[in-house]
């Protein structure tokens, strides 16, 4: 196991652990050796695994995944291992997967986890690379690890195709775009460089209307009046709406008066995980094409500022 850092727990525990593993392996029937059983603490990795046709053994916080990431759906056989930043150790230890994939954000002490199974930090953020190349590399790596290289390359090729067609379909669009997700009725996260929204902006002719500061995940938390700073902008809202936001927006005078809202340049996407992988990226790109290119003809004539 070259990739796995060896840890040095007390000899006794190591022996007991080996004993335990041996006993466990003795009692459970080992599944087919072809695809390793993988647990994913990170939703982005979970998404990619499912997209490559691998059924993850375990994923963190599945109810919230269904709400925030949505696609692709986690198979029913996959078990829940609790909160993303604290996968349940007792559960993992009793029937350890062959590999745990986690994110640098969620794990601060992987040496312990490595005693029950190999652990890898696999992340498309904080890798030192821009978002898109990092995500490609993450996808390829997941493909290599699971023996699904072909599927990974196919997913990448498919994503490239989606991005190319997005570039084609979104050509000549002059109005800038805010891509936002609501925190409450007065505040949004507005996305920019450093995540998949930034990738779309760099791969297509679309221009980001938000040019202010961004945090390490490529978004800024702002109050919605700042969406008026570019009156000509279009607004794309990534769902889900937290709590009652959609009904509160009806009373929100600023929202109702934003040029984009008045002139019908606001569109909503299905829930998309903006920090996700290629599937989320494709879904975002397709939504953008659908909502922008679709209404383009009608809007171009009506917009004047």
């Amino acid at each position: 196991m070259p990739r796995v850092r060896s840890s040095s727990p007390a000899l006794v525990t190591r022996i007991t652990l080996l004993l335990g593993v041996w006993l466990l392996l003795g009692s459970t029937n080992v599944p087919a050796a072809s695809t390793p059983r993988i647990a994913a603490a990170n939703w982005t990795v979970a998404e990619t695994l499912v997209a490559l046709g691998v059924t993850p053994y375990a994923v963190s916080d599945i109810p919230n995944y269904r709400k925030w990431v949505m696609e692709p759906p986690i198979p029913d056989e996959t078990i829940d291992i609790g909160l993303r930043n604290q996968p349940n150790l007792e559960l993992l230890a009793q029937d350890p997967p062959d590999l745990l994939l986690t994110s640098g954000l969620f794990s601060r002490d992987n040496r312990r986890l490595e005693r029950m199974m190999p652990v890898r930090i696999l992340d498309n953020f904080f890798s030192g690379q821009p978002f898109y190349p990092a995500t490609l590399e993450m996808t390829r790596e997941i493909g290599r690890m699971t023996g699904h290289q072909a599927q990974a390359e196919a997913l990448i090729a498919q994503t490239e195709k989606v991005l190319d067609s997005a570039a084609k379909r979104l050509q000549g669009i002059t109005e800038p775009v805010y891509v936002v997700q609501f925190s409450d009725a007065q505040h949004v996260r507005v996305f920019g460089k450093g995540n998949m929204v930034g990738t779309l902006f760099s791969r297509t002719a679309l221009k980001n209307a938000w040019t202010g500061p961004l945090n390490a995940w490529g978004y800024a938390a702002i109050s919605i009046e700042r969406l008026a700073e570019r009156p000509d902008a279009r607004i794309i809202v990534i769902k889900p709406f937290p709590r009652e936001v959609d009904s509160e927006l009806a009373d929100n005078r600023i929202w109702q008066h934003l040029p984009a809202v008045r002139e019908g340049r606001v569109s909503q996407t299905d829930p998309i995980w903006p920090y996700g992988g290629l599937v989320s990226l494709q879904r975002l790109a397709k939504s953008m094409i659908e909502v922008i290119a679709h209404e383009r003809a009608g809007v171009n004539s009506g917009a004047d500022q």
Partner: protein
Amino acid sequence: MTRLARSPLWLVVGMVLVALILGYATLQTHFGDLAGHWWQAIVAPDESRIRQIVLHYTFAPRLIVALLSGAALALAGCLMQQVLRNPLASPATLGVTSGAQLALVIATLWAPGWMLAGREWIALTGGIAATLLVFALSWKRRLAPMVVVLSGMVVSLYVSAINSALLLFHQESLSGLFIWGSGSLAQDNWNDSRFLLLRLAIVMVLALALLRPLSLLDLEEEGAKSLGISLRKLRFAGLGLGIFMTACVVSAVGLIGFIGLAAPAIARLAGARTLGQRLGWSMMIGALLLTLTDLVVQQMTPLTASLLPTGAMTAALGAPLLLWLLPRLKLGGSRPTPSSGLTLPRRAEPRRRLWLLGAIAIVAVLLALGLGFAVDGRQAQLAWAGWHDLSLVIDWRLPRVGTAAAAGLMLAVAGTLLQRMTGNPMASPEVLGISAGVAIGVITLMLLPLGVAPLSSSVTGFCGAVVALLVLVICNRRSGFAPERLLLTGIAISSLLEALRAIVLASDDPRAEELLAWLSGSTYYASLASMAWVLAIAALLFVLVLPLQRWLTLLPLGAPTAKALGVDVDRSRLMLLGLVALLTVAATLVVGPLSFIGLLAPHMARLMGFHGARHQLIGAGLLGIIVMVAADWLGRNLFFPYQLPAGLVAALIGGLYFMWGLRRL
């Protein structure tokens, strides 16, 4: 001439000037493009110009809401202070604001339909419930000012612990609640302004009608009674108005800390005398205080990618203000009564009881190690660990159980030391804000680079603990460490941590989740090695403390007696405080700042009849181990595979005990 010099007029004029300058600056930075049209945009915006709309629906109502909320909270604070004859009463210190907030959070999560029916009524229910709880807790001490405020702040902290537990399970969807919970004044229409204006006007009229009878409360109680006033009805009406006003503000803009305390206090210090004067001036000062804070926040907003919540900012400013006010206020009814705990009958054989406790502790540890969820395919159920689970138990349960036990032991010992040193049955590292000091130190470090480095966080944590201890000593030396004052100082430090936490959580930074998890005190990251360290430290400190029993026996008799019996009081106190700091840092880094174990364990030990210093130390230590191990087990298994942090569970258990203890303080 002299009357003019003693009136708050100049202060208010100065604040108005600063507000005007800041307001102009804010308009200039945010709406510079509209220069010349500002007034027109506020009054009658050109509907086709979005910039004017934005000014009309954000800046202007936000200013009005800040003014109204500040005035409303000051009015509420003034009424509460007058009714309770307590200069420290306020919506925040009575627990009204946090009670209202919890009610709204619960309604949002489980009964969103009710929110449409009227948020202020839900908030009012929560506020009244919290107030009733506070009164129930301080009833026995005839609502003595310090005890009321102490109970109120404890209820606040407890409620926010419940809030944290809820938030842990709704991380992604509650980021909006974080923002609202920390008091963001952002507006998008005039609804809140109208809402607050109407209610403030009604409450003001009612308050004016009550002005004469209420101001008679300044007389001694007998005097007021002889004038033929039904004191009970009057108090009920005054307090009810204050709580209603607070509930309205909370439901409109969330938690705004300490304006209700600060504004009346400043008005009084600046020379407002009669109730009428105090009401008028403190409403103006409150309005201006909140507005000034909000304008500063608005000035800072464009500089960052995160949100700055105004309410949490005022709370962060309010905690130091409370610390500053404490030594300056003359408070009646704070003479300590002899603690009831000391008059309990002595048990004949504490030794046998200690053995019994030890046995229980061992059983608790064994249960916590052995009993857990067993996975069978996709199912998991509670089961005993068999021999083949040995590695599971040793590798994954033992570190957490051991760490929890060590932390419980250390907190219990630290609490015993503090209670014996101060002669105060309610003292403990959590209650005195020493744990909060550790946490503030660690947060400060965490916000600088990414992630938590264990070594450096223990260093900054230690610095935090030392600073907290210094603040405690400085604020209380003059009063001779009067028990309630000491506790109040500690709780004020804890509320500063609360404000800091709200600011970090509202910043909408993904790291906030990690911080929330750490602050809630999880044993999740314990490993065999770290457990060995923590256990070794705990054992070492425990061994160091045991021989100090002579000091611990003599110090509660009072400094002169102890001195006469040959104890170097200053040196012994310094050493004991040093030990308390070390114990607290080590324990807080593991189980977070709010577990109440340090309070609960020594207290219970004394109730069980361990009066000798040595017996109390050992008994409290064992109890600390038992409670903490139980809390950790509950946290791990209650919502399997999701886990609650041990510190949070312990706080939910220990907080109840603390409130119960307050009742008999």
